[in-house]
């Protein structure tokens, strides 16, 4: 009986698991294997070199800089993006003033319009967003400095991406701008499924908007926030951060290594310098960082599930 059931389950899982093993697990195994070789990526010959790549990585200043920036991305971007998205979603769905003859719980005036506006960046590909902002940050004729000039701040003309102290923040701002809309929509959907009676009860008890948010909305939305957190962290460590840094920044990765991130370094080592094995080594480090991030978020965020 037990055996038959096992076979039944395997029959269903074989195809998806096979695909997963082939396209996800196997490439991981392969890259870990290559990180112990001296493969260039340009010829089929290579030999095993043991832990050479790893000891080299630990001595590599650029690697540490990129790790530092990636960690900053993974820690800061989710806090800012999800914080902003929660605020916007709350205002759109719950935060409005009570209007005559309207429902008790409602968003601010024009909330349906805002919802669309916030989502707008999401329909643009990240490459286009990065290009648009590269133009906006142009110190000579870009939108930002023109605006500053327009309001009479002729002396405040930052170099934006050309300034090592500003560049990383400028890049982060773009990522926040382009991803916040998605989370607004995600959280809006979550908030819509919270029963209105709960809010009404809170209102009757005299709760203000801040209390309502922290005592009602956030606890009931916790699962969504948590998965959004992991998703945003992975996004900040992976493809999205690569695209903006590669397209927008000096060098790319500069000025003076002030914006380099791990994914960019993997790309440069593999496809510019012909050191594919070393690139996979950095890739393994990135894998470790990503897994650790997901584990920490899951662990810290573990809470009792509320049923409603």
């Amino acid at each position: 009986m037990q055996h038959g059931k096992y076979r039944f389950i395997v029959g269903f899982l074989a195809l998806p698991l096979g695909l997963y093993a082939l396209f996800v697990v196997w490439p991981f195994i392969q890259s870990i294997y290559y990180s112990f070789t001296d493969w260039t990526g340009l010829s089929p010959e290579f030999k095993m070199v043991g832990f050479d790549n790893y000891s080299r990585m630990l001595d590599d200043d650029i690697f540490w800089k990129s790790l530092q920036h990636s960690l900053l991305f993974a820690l800061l971007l989710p806090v800012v993006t999800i914080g902003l998205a929660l605020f916007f979603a709350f205002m759109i769905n719950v935060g409005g003033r009570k209007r005559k003859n309207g429902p008790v719980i409602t968003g601010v005036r024009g909330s349906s319009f805002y919802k669309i506006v916030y989502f707008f960046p999401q329909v643009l590909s990240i490459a286009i967003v990065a290009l648009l902002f590269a133009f906006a940050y142009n110190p000579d004729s870009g939108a930002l400095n023109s605006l500053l000039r327009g309001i009479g701040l002729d002396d405040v003309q930052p170099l934006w991406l050309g300034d090592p102290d500003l560049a990383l923040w400028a890049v982060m701002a773009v990522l926040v701008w382009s991803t916040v809309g998605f989370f607004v929509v995600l959280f809006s959907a979550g908030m819509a499924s919270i029963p209105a009676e709960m809010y009404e009860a809170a209102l009757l008890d005299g709760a203000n908007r801040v209390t309502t948010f922290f005592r009602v909305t956030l606890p009931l939305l916790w699962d969504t926030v948590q998965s959004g957190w992991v998703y945003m962290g992975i996004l900040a460590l992976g493809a999205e951060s690569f695209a903006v840094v590669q397209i927008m920044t000096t060098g790319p990765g500069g000025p003076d290594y002030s914006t380099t991130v791990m994914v960019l370094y993997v790309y440069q080592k593999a496809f510019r310098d012909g050191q594919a094995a070393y690139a996979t080594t950095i890739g393994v480090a990135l894998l470790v960082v990503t897994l650790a991030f997901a584990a920490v978020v899951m662990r810290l965020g573990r809470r009792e599930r509320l049923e409603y």
Partner: protein
Amino acid sequence: MGSTSAENHGTEGVGRRDLIKRSAALGLISVPTMSFLSACASSGGDSGDKAKAGKKTAKNPLAVNDTAGMEFVLFDGGFGKEYAEDAVKIYEKNFPKASVKFSATQKIQSTLQPRFNQGTPPDLIDNSGAEQMDMGVLVGKNQLTDLTPLLDAPSYDDPNKKVRDTLRPGIVEMGQFDGEKVWILYYAYTVYGVWYSQKALDSLDEQYPETWDQMLAVCAKAKKKGMAGWTYAGKYPYYLPFSLYPMIGKVGGREVLDAIDNLEPNAWKHPAVKACFEAYYELYKKGYVLKGTPGLDHIQSQTAWAEGKALFIPNGSWVENESANVIPEDFDLAVAAPTGIDSSDKMPFGTIWASGGEPFIVPAKAKNAAGGMEQLRIMLSEASSKNFTGKVKSLTAYNGGTDGIALTPGLKSGVAALDKAGENVVNPRMQDWYVQLQKEKIGVSGLGEMMAGRLTPAEAVKKIQGFADETAKDDSIKHYKHQ
């Protein structure tokens, strides 16, 4: 090769046993695909079946097998693909029985890297563009054919002249890495220097400056008229060397540039380097660099320059084509060799950096290497060279080929600058030998920081020397020396 495949079978075996144990169905899917994948990523054997040599005749000095197929992959970039298609037509006419497969792509690396890994590359490649495969690695791993037979073959137009003797200065040397063998043939010929509008200079009532004092005077005059003296691709400061390196060569002599390329200890501490760095830094200090330049990319800086916001820009001869849509009709584009310090400079004014672009390679594992070389020989004929220059406004490696075709202002000025330079053409190799060192270390972190005013020349020299020493010590990078 042997060891490679053995290792691959090893991992494959472990993975297979492991998975079969867990689920038979899963194993059924993954086993065949896994061996397929590992074949894809890094194994693959010698192709073995190379084309037999044909008959060597006066018309066919490379002994091309006239029935063997020939495959040519071109980088489809700023020069387009028409010039190569025209050359392929000549090959097809000369070898009517051969089937030629021509393709053009911007994705050189994505298309060809797997084929190198499988040992089945095409016969001729234009390895150029953003997806260029690292030449040092290709040479180091013996993936390329020595082009010496091509260079020693009689040229297409004149059987008494070797191909080698029809080329512009520096082309053969650039194809060498360590030793006599020539791995790469650069087909286009690029003139680097200081680009400006003759009209703008005339409006200031000035000549192109030959000494740095004159340069500062011209910039001061321009500033009075509300025009910056210089701008450059601030986001990619490795454009600065296009005028800075030949200036170092002019001030201190060729040996200084050779020492830099050879990564010799203290090469950057030479007084000529310091003098040139200080000269450039003065442009920043005196406010002669267009405001906001460190935040501009190459297109943005070229646009600002074409709009007349700045007088000079360090660049290469492609700028005429690249910025054609923003350069005004009456701009009167011109290029000059870099301004030196004063009359005590080691080399005369006119010393310029010119070198090959569009690197063509014949892979070592090509089936019809002779065919690939013959195709190159055709392209190096006077007629093909003229066709290229006329179509894409760039010179070729063929020395000459500009008579009888209408030259654009920039091209004409480039030819004049080369004539003036004569033997005094320098060819720093940093950008093709040590890409990372040249671009992000010297360029972005050294020169870029200095020109943005965040490093003094002395600090920049020290930092760059540190980077060079680091690269010299790094044994994961192949090192080269000037012959």
